């Protein structure tokens, strides 16, 4: 039975469980729902869950187990000789393709089931036969591959049969359990609620699972990278020049430098503008201005980063070249091309304005009114109150907001991929093209590199570095913000 049909059958059995549970309970109460411990539907849901959950669990565990078992069995058939020619993984994927082709051929009626299991390369041109049903193979099928593929098919069909039996048996066992337990004294509501509670806990744990997944996927690949490339050279190397032929130099420092430089420019743009905007909107502006300006500024935060990237590449970059480039307005000739640290930094700064302003706005509003009143009552002007009372009181929160904005800037990808350039260099000139950690993660993983090469794996080490830096900034920022909030509450 194929997987979709099996799932459908399982759902049908679960619905049967609902009917059975409800029916049994009502029958045992003589049709009078008041004699039941729980409402009748709870018996139904109990039946549904008992039929569904164990069988679904069996299915979920079976799927990966089956593919692992079949893989080990079949790859044992591949001789070391052919595995030495190309990698074992490649031979296995060939086997899977041939097996898939045989399936298709049987479906299309080109081969009968017996023929598919018994054809030999010595007598038939398998490649041609499979080509007829639309499965293109790169090379001729060796007899070994064909036998492995036939074995693969045989094992798969046995596995599928066993899978169906196991799942259906589990569902039927659940139904039997429902049949025995569902009577008027059974506490169906408590049972259902306990299950629902576990489902809720499971859903909440997905956050932990995601974090664990991130950390594991980063760590495993990073460790593999460091076994191919020395960690010292990665963290302290001054050159970044990957070459897919080997002999790459993969030092992170130029990338880190550009990342920090761009983030610095972005913060230099967004912090003053965002902070002043927040002060104006919360301390000076009337309700009408506030009601218009605040949502409009926040529109900037809702615009996808790809839009900012395009804005940097096609608008801001050429504009800056017109000003700072050769033959530009200033005639300084500092800038060679449109992509530069300054381009990416400026645009990222624009993106971060609403981020800084709405965070600072919250923090400024959290400063108690009594402090303002006290300061104004002593004769300070409004701006003196802001500068000498409100800002010092809000300072920890604002520092937290700036740190969060910094972590956002360091992790930003699309703007730097499109706006910052592709060459890694250590330079102080903000009008030169440089490249960042995130941009290189993208380019190393979307290229043609072999997945096991240090040139591709380095992306995971870069990701790990990025994750650690941003996580550190976030933790510090959240700690500061939280601690500060407690002071006034």
């Amino acid at each position, binding site marked *: 039975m194929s997987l979709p049909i099996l799932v459908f059958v399982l759902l049908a059995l679960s619905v049967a469980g609902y009917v059975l549970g409800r029916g049994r309970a009502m029958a045992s109460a003589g049709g009078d729902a008041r004699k039941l411990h729980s409402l009748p539907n709870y018996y139904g849901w109990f039946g549904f869950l008992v039929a569904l959950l164990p069988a679904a669990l069996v299915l979920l565990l079976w799927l990966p187990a089956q593919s692992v078992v079949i893989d080990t069995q079949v790859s044992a058939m591949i001789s070391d000789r052919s595995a030495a020619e190309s990698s074992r993984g490649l031979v296995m994927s060939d086997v899977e393709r041939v097996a898939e082709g045989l399936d298709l051929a049987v479906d299309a009626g080109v081969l009968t089931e017996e023929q598919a299991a018994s054809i030999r390369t010595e007598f038939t041109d398998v490649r041609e036969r499979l080509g007829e049903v639309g499965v293109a193979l790169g090379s001729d099928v060796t007899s070994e591959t064909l036998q492995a593929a036939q074995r693969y098919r045989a094992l798969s069909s046995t596995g599928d049969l066993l899978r169906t039996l196991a799942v259906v048996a589990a569902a039927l066992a659940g139904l039997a359990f429902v049949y025995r337990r569902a009577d008027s004294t059974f506490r169906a*509501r408590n049972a259902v*609620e306990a299950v*629902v509670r576990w489902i*809720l*806990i*499971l*859903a*909440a744990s997905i*956050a932990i699972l*995601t*974090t664990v997944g*991130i950390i594991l*996927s*980063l760590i495993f690949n990073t460790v593999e990278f460091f076994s191919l490339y020395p960690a010292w050279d990665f963290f302290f190397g001054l050159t970044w020049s990957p070459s897919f032929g080997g002999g790459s130099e993969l030092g992170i420092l130029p990338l880190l430098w550009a990342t920090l430089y761009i983030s610095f420019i972005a913060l230099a743009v967004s912090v003053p*503008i*965002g*902070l*002043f905007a927040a*002060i*104006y909107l919360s301390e*000076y*502006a009337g309700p009408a201005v506030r009601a218009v*300006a605040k949502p409009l*500024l926040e529109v*900037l935060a*809702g*615009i*996808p*980063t*790809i*839009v*900012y*990237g*395009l*804005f940097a590449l096609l608008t801001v970059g050429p504009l800056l070249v017109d000003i700072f480039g050769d033959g530009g307005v200033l005639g300084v000739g500092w800038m060679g091309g449109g992509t530069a640290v300054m381009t990416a930094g400026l645009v990222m700064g*624009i993106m971060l*304005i*609403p981020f800084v302003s709405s965070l600072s706005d919250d923090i400024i509003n959290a400063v108690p009114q009594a402090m303002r009143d006290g300061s104004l009552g002593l004769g300070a*002007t*409004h*701006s003196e109150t802001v500068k000498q009372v409100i800002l010092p009181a809000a300072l920890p929160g604002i520092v937290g907001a700036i740190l969060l904005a910094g*972590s*956002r800037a360091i*992790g*930003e*990808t*699309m703007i730097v991929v*499109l706006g910052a350039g592709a060459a890694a260099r250590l330079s102080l000139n903000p009008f030169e093209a440089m490249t960042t950690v995130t941009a290189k*993660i*993208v380019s190393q*993983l*979307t290229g043609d590199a072999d997945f096991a090469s240090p040139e591709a794996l380095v*992306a*995971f080490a870069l990701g790990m570095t*990025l*994750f650690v830096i*941003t*996580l550190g900034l*976030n933790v510090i920022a*959240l700690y500061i913000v939280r601690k500060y909030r407690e002071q006034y509450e």
Partner: protein
Amino acid sequence: MTDTTAQTGGAVATPARKGSLLEVDSLTRKRNAAEARFKMYGLSAVIVGLLFLVALLATILSNGTSAFTQTFITIPVPLERAEIEAAEKSIVKTSKYRAIIGTAFANVLSSAGIETDMSAKDLDKMMSSGAAASVRDFVLANPGSIGTTHTFDLLASSRVDGYLKGRVTREDLINDKNLDAAHLDIVDRLNAAGIVQKRFNWQFIFGADASDSRPEQAGIGVSMIGSFFMMLVVLVLSLPIGVAASIYLEEFAPKNRFTDLIEVNISNLAAVPSIVFGILGLAAFIQFAHLPQSAPLVGGLVLTLMTLPTIIISTRASLKSVPPSIRNAALGVGASKMQSVFHHVLPLAMPGILTGTIIGLAQALGETAPLLLIGMVGFIASNVPDGVAAGFLDPNSAMPAQIYEWAKRADPAFYERAWGGIIILLLFLMTMNIIAIILRRRFERRW
């Protein structure tokens, strides 16, 4: 009594003493000036921020609207049976069709009274290289049309299109091997005769992406479908999981280490850079679980993990805003804790939850970086998926990934497409946000 009044009266009469509040001294003047300056800084910061917004939107609109029109050449093509049969028998079928179109085009020129000494091959450069294929598709779809003369609206090449839109000038063509100024003279005259015209470009909205050499054919439709299937995955997964997680944390979770761990994880995940989720998707779903690359299913899974924290945070806020009296009343009439939550609190919090979910979806729709890592770029999304399963599992692109792909290509004709794509993307985001705002306004309850 009279004495005191007299004294105060006298005090008013005397000239103000030094340091009186009524006299503005230099220090006060300085302080007032500082005050005015400070206020100005604030106001100008707001204005600068708004100016950036205006500049951004103006750039998008001015560069992108031209993508919605496209230049077409109207040519009556005689579909002779003999020629078509010969073309279908040859190996390079479309080049034979090109020849048929070329002759028809030359006839159009001469009947319009335009004299030219250009060869048919040179004239052909004014047309899109996809024109022959579209004629052939029409013939194959309508065999009855063979033997008649059918009038086709064929795509002009991107250079001609760019000339009519003002992107390509005569100076640009000096170094261009595809088109020269003589072509443009013909275009001018054809345009005046109404044979070459700009029309609304439905193909851009509903069509598929085209290869590097045919920017005039590229459309965003297929990647829109990719985005749609991705959003379906995100909605189906993140709404139930997010709501379940929030209910647990808000209503049931005991105060212990485990709960703290979940809370810390959620707030940290909300701030993890999106590209890290892309790495997770690559390693977990593609490397480890062997799900197909470039599939909207995988993209949806990655975006689900990314939007879950956002949805959980907003759902918790709306659960929190339901007053405890509702819960107490339900418990008081004998409901279990679970019943009070599912029957009373959850329905009341639903508008807020939906608003948060829509905003989360909008965020996911515009996200690009994680999609690059799971392979939703670098190929041409040319086929509309046939069927629902194919929609989830076949390689496809997504709107932002398609825009990125266009932005990377060398031909500036693609930039116009990228801006146009952004307009469509922003329209979707705007619609979603407006729905969210309306939901909030319509159903928001003040307790």
